[in-house]
């Protein structure tokens, strides 16, 4: 394993010594909105080709872009969620290049004056440890259309439904040091966007894609870069375009780092270039068409005025920000007394957190609810391949169940049976327990009667317990069996000890 668990330092051994990697990511996140960034066409996914296209999106001559207010609000909201500076003056520029799915011949983007400046987010690795990644900027831009190459051997089919949909390009600082950290960063970013409701975050639907910048350096060089901010301490980077899953991001980084190390160790030089990741082979290769296209000839879009935001516009969004994952996690630990682990598991997915909050809103105990939601409920959902929003058991039902355990009406064991009934048949847990006689027996008289009968029927076992007290478990099991598991375990233990004199 190249990853040292104690320091999280990721090193790759080479023929001439150890290497480290430095990664920065540009994440393109589709803005959650009804209409496109500069036109009134729908953003809905999965429509017939070229139906969600206006004459603006098709770049017909004489069409003018008019910006969508909500997309601006979403960008500001995201910026605030990334603890970033909001630039009340920003501007749209044209990024010029030719491609069949870009009918304008340029993308409207923000080059010199982005809407959001520097920020930072705290990310979590799989083992629960945290690291901070700086955000360099966030800007608004248009998405391109979609080219389909496999419908015809000699032609490309173009669908402009996606053309003009708003994207936020979120650019990180090169603060990511391993494939695992890259995945953790993108996952954290996605969680934040989902909490903010500014991006759906579904990578399979292309709602989030990443360009990954990778370079390699000798141990110690990165620290020098962080101290001085001087990029010359780092190696030359290559950009891997459009990687669309966490697994591919990790694979692409691993492959690319190894490729660069091999070149350097054989006496070669890394050329700064744009590369593509082939998911089928796990290999990255240089993109031919991009060799020259790097000359984008940006200039201010004359069709659009600068975007100037009133302070009140930003403040209204700021005061209405939802609680973010990091704050929620802290509250779960500090106020509700959950373990760090339970809190992290719940918070990692907004739907899970919402479900849990709905359970405790009914007055159920926090720790026990977390236990039930994380273990029983999630376990069952995973087993059946269901998402939390498809759960047959509602938060009210789980709250009812947890309430019955806390008030000693049923034991944890019986609760699992009740859960099974709730899951398969539905119904109110309290009524289920009542109507099926599943209430815990806390009546000591009733338990004593069972115990007396058992001792009388099993004198040998009773003698054995006096010599070997740990065999008491046998009696506990028998009492539970005789009472259908409904006897309060604590009461059973006490009565048995008293009667058997241990």
């Amino acid at each position, binding site marked *: 394993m190249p990853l040292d668990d104690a320091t999280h330092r990721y090193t790759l051994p080479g023929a001439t010594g150890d290497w480290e990697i430095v990664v920065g990511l540009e994440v393109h996140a589709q803005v959650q909105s009804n209409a496109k960034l500069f036109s009134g066409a729908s953003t809905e996914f999965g429509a017939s080709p070229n139906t969600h296209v206006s004459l603006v999106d*098709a770049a017909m001559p004489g069409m003018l872009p008019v910006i969508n207010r909500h997309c601006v609000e979403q960008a500001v909201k995201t910026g605030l969620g990334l603890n970033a500076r909001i630039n009340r003056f920003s501007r749209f520029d044209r990024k010029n290049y*030719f491609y*069949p799915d870009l009918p304008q011949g340029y993308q409207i983007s923000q080059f010199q004056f982005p809407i959001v400046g520097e920020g930072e987010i705290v990310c979590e690795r799989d083992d629960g440890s945290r690291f901070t990644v700086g955000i360099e900027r966030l800007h608004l831009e248009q998405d391109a259309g979609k080219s389909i190459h496999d419908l015809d051997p000699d032609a490309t089919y173009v669908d402009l439904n996606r053309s003009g949909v708003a994207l936020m390009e979120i650019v990180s600082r090169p603060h990511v040091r391993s494939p695992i950290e890259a995945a953790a960063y993108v996952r954290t970013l996605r969680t934040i966007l989902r909490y903010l409701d500014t991006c759906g975050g579904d990578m399979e639907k292309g709602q989030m894609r990443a360009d990954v910048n990778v370079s390699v350096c000798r141990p110690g060089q990165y620290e020098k870069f962080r101290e001085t901010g001087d990029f010359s301490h780092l190696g030359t980077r290559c950009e891997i375009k459009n990687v669309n899953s966490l697994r591919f991001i990790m694979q692409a980084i691993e492959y690319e780092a190894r490729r660069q190390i091999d070149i350097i160790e054989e006496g070669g030089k890394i050329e700064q270039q744009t590369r593509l990741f082939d998911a089928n082979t796990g290999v990255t290769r240089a993109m031919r068409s991009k060799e*020259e296209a790097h*000359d984008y000839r940006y200039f201010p879009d004359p069709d659009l005025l600068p975007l100037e935001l009133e302070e009140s516009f930003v403040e209204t969004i700021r005061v209405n920000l939802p609680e973010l994952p990091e704050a929620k996690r802290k509250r779960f630990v500090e106020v509700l007394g959950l373990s760090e682990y339970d809190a992290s598991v719940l918070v990692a997915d907004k739907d899970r957190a919402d479900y849990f909050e709905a359970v405790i809103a009914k007055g159920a105990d926090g720790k026990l609810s977390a236990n039930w939601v994380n273990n029983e409920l999630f376990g069952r959902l995973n087993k059946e391949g269901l998402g939390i929003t498809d759960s047959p058991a509602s938060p009210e039902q789980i709250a009812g169940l947890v309430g019955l355990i806390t008030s000693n009406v049923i034991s944890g064991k019986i609760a699992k049976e009740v859960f099974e009934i709730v899951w398969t048949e539905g119904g109110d847990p309290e009524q289920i327990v009542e109507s099926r006689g599943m209430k815990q027996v806390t009546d000591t008289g009733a338990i004593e009667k069972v115990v007396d009968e058992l001792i009388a029927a099993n004198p040998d076992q009773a003698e054995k317990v006096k010599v070997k007290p740990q065999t008491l478990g046998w009696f506990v099991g028998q009492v539970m069996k005789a009472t259908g598991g409904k006897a309060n375990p604590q009461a059973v233990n006490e009565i048995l000890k008293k009667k058997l004199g241990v």
Partner: protein
Amino acid sequence: MSVSEDDVRRIARLARIAEPKDRVAKLTGELNGILAWVEMLNEVDVDGVEPMTTPVSTPLPLRDDTVTDGEIREKVLKNAPKAEEGFFVVPKSVE
């Protein structure tokens, strides 16, 4: 500031304009003439003057986030040299 004949060829290529082979020298001269003329602006002292982005002093108009357009596929595809099954069809362009 001036451009060379190579610059002119490159600009043509980036703009997807056929290389004006027999006119490169002439165009280079013309472009340099325009650049030299614009360069006169450098004579104006702009120290401490904020760059002007636009002569228009109205704010950028904002639109509501409602679907008001689209669903006009026939119109969108009308001028396409080739269209099939609702798609634009173009020469193969894949990496």
